[in-house]
Each structure stands twice: as C-alpha cells, then as structure tokens.
C-alpha cells in the first residue's frame, strides 16, 4: 500500500520549517522526526543517522555512523541511480533533488522517496528518506547486495551483555526499582522538581514513542497515525503503553463537547513505583501522552493527572485539553476537582 510522506509537529519553540532546516537541527531534533535522515560526507561515510532511519532499517547507529554507507551499510544503493546521484549532487549547484529508490533489506524491500538537501559548506549531504511502500524481500539478488542485518554488523553482542528487540533496538530489562530509585533521588536532591522533571522526561520519551508508533503502523499496515480515527490512534497508544509495561490505558471521550477527553491508566507502573503520595505522581505519563497527542492533533496540548493511584485511587486519570487551558486545569485540580464534570464546571468560561 502506498503512503504519503509522514508529517510531525515541530518542537513547541519551532519556527517555520522547511527541509533545508534539517542540517541545522540537533541530534535530538532529528530523532523526533518520523522519517529517516542520513548525513553523508563526500566519501559516503555516515556522519549522522536519526532514530527513525535506525528503527526502519533495524540497525543500531552505533554500528552505522562512521562507516561507508554505500559499501557496508546499504550495498543496495551502490548503483549509478543512487550513489551516482548523490555523488553528482556534491558537484552540482542544485539545492535539493528528489528521486525514488528501493532499499533492499533481508527482512523486506522498502520503496522510498529520497530528498537530497545540500548544506552551504558543501562538505556533506543530507538524505531525507520517506518510506512509501513495504514489500517482501526480493529474491534472486546477488550475494552481498542486500543491506546487512544488525547481527551481521555486530556479531556476538548477546555474549557482551547487549540485548535487542525484534527491531534490533538495544533494550534494557529493568524492574520498577529503577523508577523508585529515580524518584527517591529527586526527592533527595530536588524535592519540588519531580513533577517538572518527569513531565519533561515523559514528553521527550513521547517524541520517541511517536517515531515508534509511526514506524510500527507503517510496517504493519502501510498507514500513518494521521490516517487513524481518534479511537484507533489512542488504542495503538494504549497497546504501546501496555507492551512497555506501563499499565492499561482506556479512553473516555464524553468530555469532547467541552474540548477535552479523559485517559484512565490502570496499574500505572510509575504510580506504583513511587509509592504513597498526597499529590498525583504520574507526570512521566502526562508528558508521554502530551507528546503523542500533540503529534496527532498538530497543536500544543496539556495533559494533567486528575487523580493518581499513588494517592490511593483505583486508577490514574488524566485529562487532555488544549495547552492554554493547562493553568486552569492545574488550579481546578489543586482546588479539589475529582471528575471531568467538576473540571468542566471549573473551566466554564475559560477560553
């Protein structure tokens, strides 16, 4: 199934964007993009390789950056149609160039649209990679033509204590004492900072989760999140949360006529890890949901926890609303609002 290029909201402080901005973006900004970005020097050596490209190519950039893209990482691109165009681009005056290509992996063939972007110094070129179709691996290709698997680039990793998931991403197995220890550390060094820190941490994590969600959907169904209804998009988010052990998410849209909806998280890993508290403690989830919902809605949003299992409640409940209502939400919650109906009443008249 063919898909149009992916879209993502830029960071909140983001100015007007166009692809020529990519070379000036930080590594963190590149990692928030749901399409691939590869930066090559004139010799074809990989200088930068973003998270989406690593996820969709199922390679760890630790084994990619610094290596020859055309010979070692993607031999399928060592053709006049691909490598030839890139090399010619270095010697041309063109600012951008676009062309279709095919990435042959051993796990599948990916049809892509490549956009070459020049940098002013002309000492490197950026390849923006939009996947447009996923096919089964092509047969009958010459040995060594397909891109190598992560395990071939870095054999014997398991013996070195390196674990990977099905997409070859490095993973850690930690129990919730990891979160407990983190929370206790913040209570010790900056007692009032947990909420702000963990919300920002969750938001940054959510930006990466969006890349994950988009990549999974693209691979499984040839769709992007923008194709999905609100219920479908939130159900995929719920699935993502569950497979990461965060708990079970449910969504309630009865507050929609008032410009908000509700997310319930049962068995919150964060809430249970931080222990009893008089105030909501799942700010990590607030930030995570905020980033995912902002990507879907293409606008700044506020997610606030109405009640938390750390307070002894059966489940954690979050409210999603537009960003400018955040302070009013916080005030209403601080003043004791316990339900969406009470929030709606408190927000009445708030633009």
């Amino acid at each position, binding site marked *: 199934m063919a898909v*149009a*290029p*992916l*879209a*993502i*909201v*830029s960071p*909140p402080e*983001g*100015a*007007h*964007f*166009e*692809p020529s901005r990519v070379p000036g973006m930080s590594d963190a900004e590149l990692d928030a*993009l749901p*399409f691939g970005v590869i930066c090559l020097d004139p010799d074809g050596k990989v200088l930068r390789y973003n998270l989406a490209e690593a996820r969709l190519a199922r390679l760890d950039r630790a084994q990619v950056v610094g290596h020859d893209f055309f010979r070692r990482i993607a031999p399928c691109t060592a053709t006049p149609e691909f490598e030839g165009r890139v090399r010619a681009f270095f010697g041309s005056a063109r600012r951008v160039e*676009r062309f279709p290509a095919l990435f042959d992996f051993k796990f599948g063939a990916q049809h892509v*649209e490549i*956009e070459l972007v020049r940098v002013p110094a002309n000492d490197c070129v950026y390849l*923006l*990679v*939009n996947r447009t179709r996923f096919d089964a691996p092509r047969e009958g290709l010459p040995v060594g033509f397909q891109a190598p698997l992560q395990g071939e680039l870095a054999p014997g990793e398991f013996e070195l204590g390196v674990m990977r998931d099905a997409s070859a991403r490095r993973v850690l197995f930690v129990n919730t004492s990891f979160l407990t220890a983190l929370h206790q550390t913040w209570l010790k060094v900056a007692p009032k900072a947990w909420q702000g820190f963990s919300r920002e941490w969750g938001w940054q994590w959510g930006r990466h989760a969006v890349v994950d969600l988009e990549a999974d959907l693209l691979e499984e169904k040839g769709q992007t*999140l*923008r*194709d*999905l*209804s*609100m*219920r*479908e*998009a939130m159900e995929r988010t719920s699935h993502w949360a569950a497979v990461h052990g965060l708990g079970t998410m449910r969504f309630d*849209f009865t507050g*929609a*006529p*008032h*410009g*908000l909806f509700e997310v319930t998280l049962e068995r919150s890993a964060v809430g249970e890890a931080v222990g009893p508290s008089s105030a909501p403690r799942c700010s990590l989830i607030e930030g995570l949901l905020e980033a995912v*919902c*902002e990507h*879907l*809605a*293409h*606008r*700044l*949003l506020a997610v606030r926890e109405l009640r938390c299992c750390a307070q002894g409640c059966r489940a954690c409940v979050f409210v999603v*609303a*537009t*960003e*400018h209502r955040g302070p009013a939400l916080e005030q209403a919650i601080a003043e004791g609002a316990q339900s969406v109906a009470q929030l709606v009443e408190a*927000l009445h008249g708030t*633009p």
Partner: protein
Amino acid sequence: MEHPELVAGLPDDEIPVNIYFDGFDWDGAGDDPGDDAGSPSVEALLERPD
C-alpha cells in the same frame, strides 16, 4: 498556538493532517457537534467510515 508542521518533501500547504484530531473541538466552544454541516460529531471523530 498551532504547531508549524514538518514534513520531508512537501510544501507547507500540502501537509496532510489527521482530520479526526483536527476536527475535535479543542476550544470547547460549546458548539453542538454534528448540528451544522461543517462540524463533525464526536462519533465521526472516533470511528473511520467503513
């Protein structure tokens, strides 16, 4: 404040959006969704047509 959008290879005015989230009444203006021709009902935002 609206986010500017970011997409490779598309001019800004051609960037597609999620029509379901875009149609949500984020301002909670109290419009009666579904009553006028341009305002989708909540049900229409939650489910894709078959």
